[in-house]
């Protein structure tokens, strides 16, 4: 059965087509290379890429997170764990970490579970939780992939002060939320 088949092939099929195939290879040699040399060269992501989370601060350094757990509730993968606690203004208490009554004392995101869907960002009522473009979320132990609040908090920018400290930008949380603290201070968001 093989004999008649090879005889049926035309001359073009036998000789031109293999050369034409190499032509594709040859042409590609002059094109721009698409291979990325990750991790030696790192490429910027799309601007709204869903990367590692960040807990933002107000311009005076207070945390935006109010410990409401709505992110944990929104999370379809059950990756977020939050415990709230009360801010205190008197000297003997824990101190003030956020404007208003309540702050997130414990904040953990488990990146073994997180699918980076961004529903937590949508749920956050104070824009405390946003996502950065950081995508290098690999580690060697499981425990290290549970990010604590200290890992997630935004860095202190100039003019910010490490909480706990009293509200510097207004008398109550309302002035923070309404943005009444003046044009001089910029948003703390990254």
């Amino acid at each position, binding site marked *: 059965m093989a004999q008649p088949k090879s005889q049926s092939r035309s001359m073009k099929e036998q000789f031109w087509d293999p050369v034409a195939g190499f032509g594709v290879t040859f042409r590609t040699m002059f094109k721009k290379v698409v291979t990325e040399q990750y991790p030696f060269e790192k490429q910027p992501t799309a601007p709204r890429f869903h990367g590692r989370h960040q807990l933002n601060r107000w311009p005076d350094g207070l945390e935006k997170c109010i410990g409401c757990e709505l992110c*944990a509730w929104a999370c379809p993968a059950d990756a977020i764990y939050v415990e*709230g606690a009360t801010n205190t203004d008197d000297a003997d208490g824990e101190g003030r970490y956020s404007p208003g009554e309540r702050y997130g004392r414990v904040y953990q995101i488990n990146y073994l579970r997180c699918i980076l869907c961004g529903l937590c960002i949508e749920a956050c009522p*104070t824009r405390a939780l946003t996502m950065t473009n950081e995508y290098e979320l690999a580690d060697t132990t499981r425990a290290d992939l549970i990010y604590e609040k200290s890992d997630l908090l935004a860095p202190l920018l100039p003019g910010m002060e490490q909480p706990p400290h009293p509200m510097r930008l207004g008398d109550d949380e309302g002035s923070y939320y309404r943005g009444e603290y003046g044009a001089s201070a910029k948003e703390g968001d990254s």
Partner: protein
Amino acid sequence: MTTVPEKTDLVTLTIDGVQLSVPKDTLVIRAAEQVGVQVPRFCDHPLLAPVGACRQCLVDVPDAGNGRGFPKPQASCTLPVAEGMVVNTQATSPVADKAQQGIMEFLLINHPLDCPVCDKGGECPLQNQAMSNGRADSRFSARGGVKRTYPKPINISAQVLLDRERCVLCARCTRFSEQIAGDPFIALVERGALQQVGIYEREPFESYFSGNTIQICPVGALTSADYRFRSRPFDLVSTPSVAEHDACGSAIRIDHRRGKVMRRLAGNDPEVNEEWITDKDRFGFHYATEPDRLTYPQIREDGELRPASWPEAFAVAARGLSEAGGTGVLTGGRVTAEDAYAYSKFARVALGTNDIDFRSRPHSAEEAAFLAAEVVLRRTVTYADLESASTVVLAGLEPEDEAGMIFLRLRKAAGRAGSGGGTRVVSIAPYASRGLAKMHGQLVRTAPGDEAAALAALVAQGEFGIDKTAVILVGERLATVPGALSAAAGLAARTGARLAWVPRRAGDRGAVEAGCLPNLLPGGRPVADAGARVDVGADWGVDVPETPGRDADGIIAALGSGELGGVVVGGVDPDDTTDPAATRAALEAASFVVALELRETDVTRAADVVFPVAPVSDKAGTFVTWEGRPRPFEAVFSSPSSLPDLRILAGIAEELSALGVGRPLGFRTVAEARAEMEEMGPWDGERAVLGGSETALRPSSTTEEAGAGAPSSTTEGHFALATWKLMIDNGSLQDGDKAYRATGRAPVARLSPTAYDAHGPTVTLTGDRGSVTLPAEPAELDDDVVWVPANSFGNGVLADLASPGSRVTIAKGADQ
């Protein structure tokens, strides 16, 4: 709440085009539920009187039953049904729907949008009903309206916090405090938009039931200092359970997260606690997470306790017990029925003794006989019976402090209007407490020690005549009064009144049923009855010892004198026992002490082997209420290192049998113990007779002591001491929540006005065990009687002041 369905007149009406018949006087809002329409509501609560405060439940009534309709929408929570009435709810009537949306808009004008930080967010009726029956947009804030705000939160009590701006003025909390708890210390003050819940300046909101106001608040206006901001309702897991703090068996709901209890709420059990629980049941759960909780077995080596493995501890305990000679068992009153059964079987099967007693408090041989004759297996009185009884006699029992649900039932029963009035409450007590006044009760003023005579006199008394519709509730404190329990039994027998024994602790009644008494075997089998012994012995495969054992005081005395060498102690606090010093000395004197405890105590510090036991949240079990009603519950957490008492006793018994002593218990899990108890069943033979078995008991020191201390001779300056434990006191199961403790009543000594005038506002009481200085308060007591709370100062009355039944002297307090 009666179980017998009453024949009532039915009224036929039409709701949303559906015709239905409901009993007369049903409110329209409940009738609507029967046709499947949920009318939104805030102020309406089935157990509170209707008030129509929130106006959210407006419905259209085109025909009020007389052919004419109401011109405006009506509040369905205050509108009783009428024959031929036509009601259109929001489901069919645009008028009602628009009215409800308008009310919702009004309520939301000043309600803050702080749902993300509000503890109620996620389980909030206002949130839910704003979604289902409110407008999507607010016209108020769209036009730049500014919400009224208050500084928040403010403390109503140490535990209850109020966010005034969240309040929708439904008055549920004030109505609960007034109608149910009888502590009307909060009320609505001011008018209009400034109306708010206020407190009296001089009367703090000190109510034992204040936590219920938090639970019934339909918004997040009332929160507890304990739970505030601790978690959100949507990540809590709820497990139904039973409260472990008193003998009422209240249904509770335990909300927990990641192996920690976050809060406890009242369950809904109309036959037991309705929808209320005491603050002790609600807030008293931190004891299980205190830092001194025992987590591993310990054995004593060279005088020091060191950690040990479970098998090693079992083996050491077994060896020690087998060498100790005679061994007694003290279980304490907090064990579940299954654990009590294990203790009972352990004593008889592994140790071969009847020296077992659950009573870690002043008690008497008479009480043991009374329990065997009148209490065990009897289920004569229920909560519902309290409501239908004509008269309820309280003897040695202060329900508000010692059995909160009985107090609420009696208050409800006594306050009920209607034919013949409500239940009449008669209390045999040294003075008319605030609790008795709240139950509209009458006092038979009785000096401590005279209760027996007062009970006996009741039958002849015209004013408080007792007949067979009456109920007699005797508290465990009556055990210290010689003859009082017999008098109560006699009174019940003569009049046909029903009798019930109300202990303080959750495990007491279960321990009676399980035979943790020197004269009782499980299922109410008397030790003195040969047939009963054979019955139990055949089940267990051993010969049950035939002599009744020693009671707790007897065991303590025998340990001190060396008659007994070993002792197995469950959750017993030496300060609760008849003689704390003697108990401590006995634990020192004992050659071998095995302690099964939750937390480090004086007992574990003196013990040779310490086993950690599971708190009730870690084990399944059954509590038996004072009625005799079993209240089974399942474990909330499964913690493999936290074992119930019965597993530990089974481990020791197995090691003992390997040493040739006794037999193994034959069960290792709660389910197996339950099955075995089920199989054994209750005793169907002759029960012990009060008075008959009394003589069979070995005399204990208590009866003599109490007998000697009976107030026969009144010497000048010597006062008879009346005392009981307040609900919120220094009990070790109430540790760990400062805000809760702060809601307790301050300890005061109550004196007759004459004595108060003589000694002034601060008095020093001196008894045979010490002296204490307390602020004094005048009350209607006998001139030679003084009342102090039993466990609200120092180590308690028994340790720091006086032995039971003894007298104290009073001097002017110097240091205040």
